[in-house]
């Protein structure tokens, strides 16, 4: 109820604000009056809202472009940071779907084009009785991307992941509770297939914070305390199996989902070498 009230307020307060949605010749654009925020997103997307909130969801603006019986619906999910927008985009990204060159990254499937643009995760979809043409969906996406004028590119940390053996489009960003532990908070991840299958992760945080995380991790392990082998920490985690980690300055680099210590060490050292 309160959110509905403030939607009304926003409507009145933003009446002169510039629209986020560009005009498209020959199409009628109708912006939805209601703007969803973190207290009412669930009213639109039900339980799927919870994960959006973990990624610093700010608000959602919606518009529809219509022409005869074709409707193209656009949803602009605004997040607190580009990292968070990348996180939710990558959590929903379908690696198997054809990629599109719009924004920082995007993909399409039948009647749908989703892309990432700075702090926005954008969904463009055919929503009318007649299927909108793919080229038109792409055109709307392109115009939106220009209108949003966001910086292009993915988070810099992703450049630290070695290319060799990395699964296509497997990179992600977990904003909270990485590995199921609240003390780890956020991490960048990528999956690998080489001599073994595993996941490489990179946590970026002040060095002292990383030390604190490691202390808490150690404290949480009732048995099998971490073993240090030179710079490599080896942990037998009761839930996540073997966890291999090494810290360098403001980065904690690790490998999970494999027991192969040689491979883990090799990939961690490749990342460590890239850290300035």
């Amino acid at each position: 109820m309160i959110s509905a009230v403030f939607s009304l307020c926003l409507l009145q307060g933003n009446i002169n604000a510039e629209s986020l949605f560009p005009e498209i010749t020959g199409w009628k654009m109708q912006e939805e009056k209601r703007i969803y925020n973190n207290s009412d997103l669930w009213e639109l997307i039900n339980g799927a809202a919870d994960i959006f909130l973990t990624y610093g969801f700010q608000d959602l603006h919606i518009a529809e472009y219509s022409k005869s019986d074709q409707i193209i619906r656009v949803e602009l999910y605004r997040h607190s940071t580009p990292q968070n927008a990348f996180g939710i985009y990558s959590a929903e990204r379908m690696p198997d779907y054809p990629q599109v060159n719009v924004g920082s990254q995007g993909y399409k499937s039948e009647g749908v084009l989703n892309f990432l643009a700075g702090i926005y995760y954008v969904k463009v979809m055919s929503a009318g009785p007649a299927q909108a043409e793919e080229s038109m969906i792409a055109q709307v996406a392109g115009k939106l991307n220009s209108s949003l004028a966001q910086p292009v590119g993915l988070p810099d940390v992703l450049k630290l992941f070695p290319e060799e053996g990395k699964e296509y489009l497997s990179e992600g960003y977990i904003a909270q509770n990485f590995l199921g532990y609240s003390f780890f908070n956020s991490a960048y991840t990528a999956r690998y297939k080489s001599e073994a299958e595993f996941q490489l992760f990179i946590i970026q945080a002040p060095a002292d914070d990383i030390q604190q995380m490691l202390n808490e991790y150690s404290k949480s392990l009732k048995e099998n305390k971490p073993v240090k082998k030179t710079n490599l920490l080896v942990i037998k985690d009761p839930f996540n199996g073997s966890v291999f980690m090494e810290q360098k300055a403001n980065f904690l680099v690790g490998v999970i989902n494999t027991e192969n210590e040689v491979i883990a060490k090799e990939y961690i050292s490749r990342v460590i070498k890239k850290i300035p």
Partner: protein
Amino acid sequence: MGKNLQVNRRGFLKSSVMGTAGALICTTAMGNQGSNAKNEPVILRRRLGNTDIELPIVSFGVMRSDNAALVKSAFQMGFEFFDTAHGYQEGRNETMLGEVFKDVPRSSFLLATKVYPDDVNRQTGELGPGSTKESIIEKFDLSLKRLQMSYVDILYLHGVSSREFALAPQLLDAFRELKKQGRVRYVGMSTHHNEPDIIQAAIDSDFYNVVLTAINFTQAHGGAIKEKIALAAEKGIGIIAMKTMAGGFFDKERTLPVNCSAALKWVLQDKNICTSIPGIVTYDQMNQNFAVMENLELTEKEKADLEIPKPLAGLYCDGCMQCVRQCRKHLPVHELMRAYMYTYGYGQVEKAGRLLRETAMVTDPCGDCSDCTVDCPKGIRAAERIADVSRLVNVPLDILASL
């Protein structure tokens, strides 16, 4: 309904989670939980309406697809029922569950998913011509493929918000067909909007086996929901609770966390509710929720934590008036904080609107101040709250009164 079923944890783990009533110890007692004669932990279980399903009173809401290890651990620990949806993370949630359970005997766990029809007006719940039987079946086919399963235990119509939506013949046809094919054991609907009417629709339908409803200690209409839950239970409809943590925070800024165990226990005091599906994303939450399965008794502290005024202390202005002296515009900051509390604490927006008018407030009165001189002893960030709540002056009182 209303019957608690207790079983020793060692006894229930993984042998079979269906049709185990004969092996269970039945009790109607709410007290003396958490142990049996040998002081071994016991898990409270309840039957799901007239189905042949009995479940521990806490289940697992699968919120994220990035931590399969958490789901595996929960299953090994004794969670039996996992809840997902076709639309969660564009299907990756279901895909992850499919990978987790692909090598696990199908009879050792229960799983529910949800499908949302195409062409639904999300505001009104009205269905358009695109809400077809075929589209529901098509979505469900994809869900089963992702889950790598031949059936689900419960299929819900997702996010039902109107009676018309709940009773749409083409949607019921789709569910009926899937049930007949054996690909769905029981049919249900989920609702977190207009819940009493929706539960009534389920009762009237003579169709649904299960209702998944939002229910928590903060809802102003919680009493009405509970009345309908009792009626539904009487008719043999199984009730599953969601949104039991009320979003996890008391305040909009998400700084005042809810005592989640207490909130969960509060919901489960209602014996008409079979189980709950709190979202679990950490091992701590998993352990905490598991502990609720063993002991539903609310401690005195937990009871106190659930008293609305106390947790709302962060919203509550003591009225010390320091702020009025500190504000360079001499705004009635304490009154504005009161309006904020009415709005976010109690949902009394009309009262807040009237208060704002009484103080002759304008929208965003701090807008032309570059910094705020108010230093609240309780740490309340006055300028942010004033900017937020003062927007209510734009909304006519008759509209506020109608909400």
